[in-house]
C-alpha cells in the first residue's frame, strides 16, 4: 500500500475550537461538539474526537453528511456517508452529502500519512470506525435531547429514520426539532456502536449516489466550471524534460480571436513533483486557446534529456543490477541464499520488465484558480488538498490559511490527480491575471505529462531442492523511489525502505516462505518524473514474483497452485482465496483442446485476491477468454462498489498485460492519444467472474488497487501452459481478435 509519511501535525487545542466555530458559520444550527463539551461552550477541549466534522442537522430536519474524501469515481461519497448514516439512523441514499466547508479541518488529516489526501485504497478501511462513532455520537445526543424534553431516560427513546421515538408511547420528534437542544448537551465520552446484525445499510448497499446526475449529464465536473470573466488556459510544456524557453514569439498566438494572454510558466525543479517549464495561452474558451497554442513560436533550450531513449532502459537497468555499487535496500532476509545455490537440484534465473504507463483518467486534468483578496481559491477535483497548500506557498508565497478549496467530483484519477504540477501551474497563472483561470489538459498533454508509472526491471534467481521445493530465492527489484514526492527525508529512515516501492516484497507482506530468502530493492533514478498510478509497485513486484513462481513450479514438475500453497505459511485467508478461485475457474477439471488456465495472487491494503485467467488459442490467435477472481476484503461496506472496483482493477490488469506502454525517444514522449496508447475497450473484455468472500466481518479493508496486479502474471502463466513460451516483458505481443 502507498505508505506516505509526512511530519506529524499536532494541532493546538485552541486552534481546534476556532476552526470548529468557523466550520459551523452560516448554519442556522449546526452541531459542533467535542466530548464532554457542549456546542455553546467555548472552553479548552481535547480535539481527538470531532463528530461535528461529519454531521450537520438543520432546524428544518435537513441532515447533511460531510464526506471529506475525494470521489473520483471510487464511490467514497456513498460508502463513507453510509458509515455515518448507519449509526445516525438516516438513509445514506436520501440525506444530503456535501464536501467539507473547510477541507483543512484537522479531523480530516489522513491518519497514516498526516496530510490532507485521498488515496492508497485507505478511505473506507481507515475511516470506518471514526465515521461510525461520529454518527453514533450525533444519534445519542439527539436521543438525549428528546429524552430531556419528554422527561424520560434516554434508554426509553430510540432513533430511527431521522426521528426520535418514545419507546412506550406515541411521542416523536424529527431530528431538526431536536438539533438546537442537542447542540447544547455535552457530547458523550463514549458511544455504543451497532452490532453487525443491526446494520441496515453497511454491507447491503448496491447503488451509489449521484447516479441520476451522471446519466443525465447534469453532474458538474471541473471541466464544466464557468465563472464570469474566466479565462481558459492551455500550456505548451517543454517537450523534453529540463528544456527551458529560449525564445518566444507570441504574436501569431495573440492574433487568434479570443486569445487574451500568453504567459511563460517557469519550471520549478526545486519542488519535488514540480512543474516543467511551459508557455500558457489564455483565451475566452478552450478551442481558441488551443488555436493560439498551435500558433506559438517557442524555441526550447537543449537538455541533457534529449539523449534519453526508453528503448535502452532494459540494458541500462540490467547493467545497474550488476553494479555492486548500486544502492540496495534489503526488504526480506532469511537464511543465506548465496550458500544455498551450490546445493540446488535446479537453478532458475529470469528477468521481468515493465514499461512506463500513463493513468489517463477520461476527464483530462482540469482545475480552476482565482486570487481574491489575498486568498487563493481552487475549484475542481483536488484529491490532495495538501498539494494545493504547497502550490500556494511555493508559487504565490501564501500561507496555509490563505487557501480555499471548492471541491468537485473528478472524472477518474488513478493517481493522475495525486500529481501537483498542475496545481502549481494554475496557482502561477492565477497570480498573473486578475480573473479566474481554468487550466485544461488536452489528451495529448495527459499522455505527455509524465508523473505516471515507472519503468522497472526485476531479476530473480531460485533454487529447487531434490524434492521440488524452493530452497532459496533472490529478487532484485530495480525501480526509482516513489515515496520521494511525499517524504523527501525518507531515505534517512533506519531501514531505508520506500514502502511504496517495495509492496508485496517486504518481510511483512511477501506471500511465500523458503529456507533462504534474499529480497531487495535497487534504487535507480533515470530522472524521468514518475508518480502515483493505481496499484503502484504491486504491479511490477507481483508480475515478477507470480510469473517466477510458475516457472519454478514448472521446473519442479509441480502444479502451480499446489506449489504456491506449499510455500505459504500461516496465511489462511490467502490460501482460501486461492482455493476458491481455483474452484471457480475449474482448475482441476479437464479443459477443451487449445485452452489453458493461469493463476496468480496478491495481497495488500489488508485484503487478498486470486485470479485465474483462461486463454484459448485458435489458428495462432490467442485470446483471453475469462478472468475468474476471488477476493477477501473483510467487510464489504458497499458490496456493489466493491464489485465494480474489482472489475475495474481486472480491466486495468488486462491493460498492463496487453496495452500499457509509454515510450520516450530523444527525451520526448512518443505516444499522443488513444490511437497509439491503447486502453481496454468493451471489445477487449473477457468474461469476468467475481466472488467476494465473506471474510472477517468486523473490519473493511482496501479494494481499489487490489485486483490489477495478478492479472498480467496470470495471463503470462496461461500463455506458457498454452504455448510453452514464457513472456517476461509487458505488454505481451499477442495477436488479438480484431
Amino acid at each position, binding site marked *: 500500500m502507498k505508505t506516505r509519511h509526512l511530519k506529524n501535525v499536532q494541532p493546538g487545542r485552541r486552534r481546534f475550537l476556532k476552526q470548529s466555530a468557523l466550520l459551523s458559520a452560516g448554519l442556522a444550527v449546526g452541531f459542533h461538539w467535542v466530548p464532554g463539551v457542549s456546542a455553546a461552550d467555548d472552553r479548552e477541549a481535547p480535539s481527538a474526537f470531532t463528530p461535528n466534522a461529519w454531521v450537520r442537522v438543520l432546524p428544518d430536519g435537513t441532515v447533511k453528511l460531510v464526506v471529506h474524501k475525494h470521489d473520483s469515481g471510487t464511490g467514497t461519497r456513498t460508502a463513507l456517508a453510509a458509515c455515518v448514516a448507519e449509526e445516525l439512523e438516516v438513509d445514506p441514499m436520501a440525506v444530503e452529502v456535501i464536501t467539507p466547508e473547510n477541507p483543512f479541518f484537522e479531523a480530516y488529516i489522513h491518519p497514516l500519512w498526516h496530510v490532507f489526501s485521498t488515496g492508497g485504497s485507505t478511505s473506507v478501511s481507515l475511516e470506518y470506525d471514526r465515521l461510525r462513532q461520529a454518527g453514533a455520537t450525533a444519534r445519542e445526543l439527539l436521543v438525549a435531547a428528546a429524552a430531556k424534553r419528554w422527561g424520560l431516560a434516554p434508554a426509553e427513546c430510540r432513533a430511527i429514520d431521522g426521528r426520535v421515538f418514545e419507546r412506550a408511547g406515541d411521542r416523536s420528534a424529527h431530528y431538526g426539532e431536536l438539533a438546537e437542544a442537542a447542540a447544547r448537551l455535552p457530547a458523550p465520552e463514549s458511544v455504543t456502536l451497532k452490532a453487525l446484525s443491526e446494520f441496515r445499510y453497511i454491507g447491503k448497499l448496491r*447503488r451509489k449516489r449521484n*447516479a441520476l446526475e451522471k446519466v443525465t*449529464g447534469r453532474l458538474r*465536473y471541473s471541466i464544466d466550471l464557468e465563472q464570469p470573466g474566466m479565462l481558459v488556459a492551455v500550456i505548451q510544456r517543454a517537450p523534453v524534460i529540463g528544456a527551458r524557453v529560449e525564445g518566444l514569439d507570441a504574436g501569431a498566438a495573440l492574433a487568434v480571436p479570443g486569445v487574451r494572454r500568453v504567459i511563460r510558466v517557469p519550471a520549478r525543479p526545486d519542488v519535488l513533483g514540480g512543474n516543467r517549464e511551459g508557455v500558457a495561452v489564455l483565451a475566452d474558451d478552450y478551442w481558441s486557446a488551443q488555436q493560439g497554442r498551435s500558433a506559438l513560436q517557442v524555441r526550447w533550450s537543449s537538455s541533457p534529456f534529449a539523449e534519453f531513449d526508453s528503448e535502452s532502459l532494459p540494458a541500462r537497468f540490467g547493467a545497474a543490477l550488476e553494479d555492486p555499487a548500486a544502492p540496495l535496500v534489503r526488504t526480506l532476509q532469511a537464511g543465506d541464499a548465496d550458500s544455498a545455490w551450490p546445493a540446488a537440484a535446479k537453478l532458475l534465473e529470469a528477468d521481468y520488465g515493465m514499461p512506463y504507463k500513463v493513468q489517463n483518467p477520461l476527464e483530462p486534468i482540469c482545475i480552476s484558480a482565482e486570487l481574491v483578496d489575498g486568498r487563493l481559491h481552487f475549484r475542481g477535483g483536488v484529491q490532495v488538498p495538501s498539494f494545493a497548500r504547497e502550490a500556494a506557498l511555493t508559487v504565490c508565497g501564501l500561507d496555509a490559511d490563505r487557501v480555499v478549496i471548492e471541491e468537485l*467530483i473528478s472524472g477518474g484519477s488513478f493517481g493522475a490527480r495525486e500529481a501537483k504540477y498542475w496545481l502549481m501551474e494554475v496557482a502561477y497563472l492565477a497570480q498573473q491575471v486578475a480573473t479566474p483561470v481554468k487550466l485544461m489538459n488536452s489528451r*495529448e498533454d495527459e499522455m505527455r505529462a509524465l508523473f505516471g508509472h515507472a519503468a522497472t526491471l526485476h531479476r530473480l534467481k531460485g533454487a529447487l531442492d531434490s524434492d521440488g521445493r524452493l530452497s532459496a530465492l533472490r529478487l532484485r527489484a530495480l525501480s526509482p523511489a516513489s515515496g520521494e514526492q511525499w517524504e523527501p527525508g525518507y531515505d534517512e529512515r533506519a531501514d531505508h525502505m520506500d514502502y511504496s516501492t517495495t509492496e508485496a516484497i517486504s518481510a511483512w507482506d511477501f506471500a511465500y516462505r523458503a529456507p533462504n530468502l534474499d529480497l531487495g530493492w535497487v534504487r535507480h533514478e533515470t530522472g524521468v518524473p514518475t508518480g502515483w498510478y493505481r496499484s503502484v509497485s504491486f504491479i511490477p513486484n507481483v508480475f515478477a514474483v507470480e510469473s517466477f513462481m510458475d516457472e519454478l513450479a514448472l521446473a519442479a514438475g509441480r502444479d502451480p497452485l499446489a506449489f504456491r500453497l506449499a510455500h505459504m505459511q500461516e496465511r489462511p485467508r490467502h490460501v482460501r482465496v486461492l482455493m476458491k478461485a481455483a474452484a471457480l475457474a475449474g482448475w482441476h477439471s479437464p479443459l477443451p483442446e487449445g485452452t489453458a488456465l493461469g493463476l496468480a495472487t496478491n495481497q495488500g491494503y489488508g485484503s487478498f485476491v486470486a485470479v485465474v485467467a483462461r486463454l484459448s488459442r485458435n489458428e495462432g490467435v490467442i485470446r483471453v477468454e475469462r478472468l475468474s477472481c476471488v477476493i477477501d476484503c473483510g467487510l464489504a461496506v458497499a458490496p456493489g462498489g466493491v464489485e465494480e472496483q474489482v*472489475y475495474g482493477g481486472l480491466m486495468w490488469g488486462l491493460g498492463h498485460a496487453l496495452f500499457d506502454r509509454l515510450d520516450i525517444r530523444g527525451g520526448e514522449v512518443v505516444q499522443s492519444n488513444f490511437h497509439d496508447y491503447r486502453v481496454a475497450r468493451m471489445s477487449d473484455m473477457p468474461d469476468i467472474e467475481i466472488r467476494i468472500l465473506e471474510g472477517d466481518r468486523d473490519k473493511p479493508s482496501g479494494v481499489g488497487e487490489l485486483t490489477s496486479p495478478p492479472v498480467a502474471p496470470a495471463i503470462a502463466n496461461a500463455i506458457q501452459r498454452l504455448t510453452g513460451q514464457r513472456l517476461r516483458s509487458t505488454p505481451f505481443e499477442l495477436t488479438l481478435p480484431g
Partner: protein
Amino acid sequence: MIKIQVNGLSHELSQDLASMPLLWVLRDKLELKGTKFGCGKGLCGACTVHFNGTPARACQIPLSAAADARIRTIEGLSENGDHPLQKAWIEEDVPQCGYCQSGQLMSAAALLASGSPVNDTSIRAAMSGNICRCGTYGRISRAIKRAAAEGGQA
C-alpha cells in the same frame, strides 16, 4: 449565420465559429455541458451525440459541417432522466466516475433506436468506440439488455 437544431431547438451561430468543433459549440456557446471532452480526436466516444439520428463524435464535426443538422445530446435524451436506458443505467448502478456515461448512453440509445437485435455482438460493435477507464463495460452491457428487454427504444 449557421443554423443548427439541438434537442429540438433552433440556434443561429456566427460564421466566425465555422471551424469550431460541434463539441465546443455545444459546451461553450450553447452551455450544454453534458457532452464531454476526452480526446479531441474521435477516439474515446465521450462526446458522442446523435447527428441526424446517427451516433457521431462531436469533437470531429466542425460547426460548418453541422449546418442545418438535427443534433441530439444527453440533455435531449429525455425530459426527466427517464429514458429506458437511463433507468436501466441507474438500476444496474452503471456509472462510477460517470464522465464517459453521456457518450456511452448516446451510443447505446442509437443502438436501440436502430432496431437491430440487441445481443453481445451488437452491443460490442456499438459500444467499443466508447472508452471507460473505471471499467463499467460489464454493467453497461447488462443495462442495455435490460432496457431492450423492457421494450425501450425512444
